[in-house]
């Protein structure tokens, strides 16, 4: 599949990545190559094969409903870019 600039812009938007217009072509070529590689999968008949999302033949363990965590806000926020009154700050969000 040939990836054009528009596809890159769409996935960059979904991925929240700012892409320099000068780099669009490079990313488009790279993704075209990867998708061509991935395109080889189409040669294999997978009809009726259940997708496998984890290699383990196991099921999920459930944990008891117990509070195990204590307040570590200070430690966590010591490495935060911007906080005030215990809140993380971001540019104004409009709902």
């Amino acid at each position, binding site marked *: 599949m040939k990836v054009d600039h528009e596809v890159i812009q769409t996935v960059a938007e979904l991925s929240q990545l700012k892409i320099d217009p000068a780099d669009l072509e490079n990313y488009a070529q790279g993704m075209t190559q990867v998708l061509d590689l991935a395109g080889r999968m189409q040669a294999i008949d997978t009809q009726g094969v259940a997708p496998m999302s984890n290699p383990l033949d196991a099921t999920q363990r459930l944990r008891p409903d117990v509070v195990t*965590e204590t307040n570590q806000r200070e430690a966590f926020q010591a490495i935060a870019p911007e906080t005030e009154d215990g809140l993380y700050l971001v540019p*104004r969000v409009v*709902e």
Partner: protein
Amino acid sequence: MTDFADSNWEAVIGLEIHTQLSTRSKIFSGASTQFGAAPNTQACAIDLGFPGVLPVVNQEVYRKAVAFGLGIGATIGLTSVFDRKNYFYPDLPKGYQITQLEAPIVMGGTVDITLEDSSQKTIRVTRAHLEEDAGKSLHEDFHGQTGIDLNRAGTPLLEIVSEPDMSSAEEAVAYARYIHQLVTFLGVSDGDMSQGSLRCDANVSVRPKGSTELGTRTETKNVNSFRFLERAINHEIERQIRVIESGGRVIQETRLYDPDKDETRPMRSKETATDYRYFPEPDLLPVEIDEAYIQQVREQMPELPAAKAARYVSEFELPEADARVLSSERQLASYFEQVVELSGDAKLASNWVRVELLGQLNKDGVEISDAPITPAALGTLIARIREGRISGKIAKTVFEALWSGAASDPDSYIEAEGLVQVSDSGSLEPVIDAIIAANPKQVEQLREGKGKLMGFFVGQVMKETGGKANPQQVNDLISKKLGL
């Protein structure tokens, strides 16, 4: 809001209800879910989406979801799978929400709602799935910035999705109320809407009456009171009709109900129209449960409101409307059942609980859990009425004393205040004789067959005895004396 009901339009409404499950810890972490803590003090590394952390599923979340599913007669997913729903938003720390798309825990089920005119309607539930709640954005002034509190992030949610089976705000509210009643009854959620424990998204569309095609729908998000739900839906129906009638087209969009302005408006955030790129959550494996587990949950479930109401009708011979009131809340029903057991009289118990108790609770704005009269006290009080030890009128005095705190135990109060009903003919006869002597004209009329004058005489005796006389006995004594 019924003006559209007479128009040429009909509404099609489906609800998505997010209910917070009342667990101690979060769905994927051991952080507390308690409401009202200082910002970010209950957000652990998992809730904050720190690098390298991993989710582990809380077992109680599963119990509650299965109990809900059983409560609406749904199919329980024996294998359920968590998925990631990808979008960026500051209150979503990982950049994805863990939810269930393809294989939810609850599938199908129905809810029977009763409308104001007593008509019934069955609403189908499409599915209910488990997911994690997001944090909160605080838009107060932080120098023009938004503050993010992630305490709520990771709180377990059950999202209950209905079919578009409702056609008015009234039906939608009745459905939402039913779900609210059910989840609180089952102890699945505390149902506290002021704390966001139950939040509704309403999908609304309109179409010409009789049409079978669906119109374009809008989704009004995050309505968290029944009153707002009714208003938001009615507003949206009217708005859509206005748009179409003025030649416009309804746009598929997400809207926000603003209770202050009492209107809905489009949401501006881009979270609304993105490609969520769902895929199975690789940090979690499929959750498998078996029939034995489901049976265990079933056995631990309390009797549900509809079953309770039916039992009250058949076992206690209560009118259906009264049975519905008494079974509507878990604590009320439990209160009532204790009163029945202690008093031995279901009908009296029903009257006292519905009229006196609920009346007082309502008047004083008190929750039944905080009622100053215990079920034991009320049960004893009613037993005394039934035994003829006190009159109904005196009982109300005792009730008031118990409510105000002037009395703590009905028996000792009746004793101390000398409220025992007078059934001793020796002390009643002089009173009756005096009243007969003082009212010769009425005696004549009573003898001539004006039966309703008996009430006058009994009333006079009650007045004279301060309400302590046994009315039935007074009646008998007068009849005997006058040779009736």
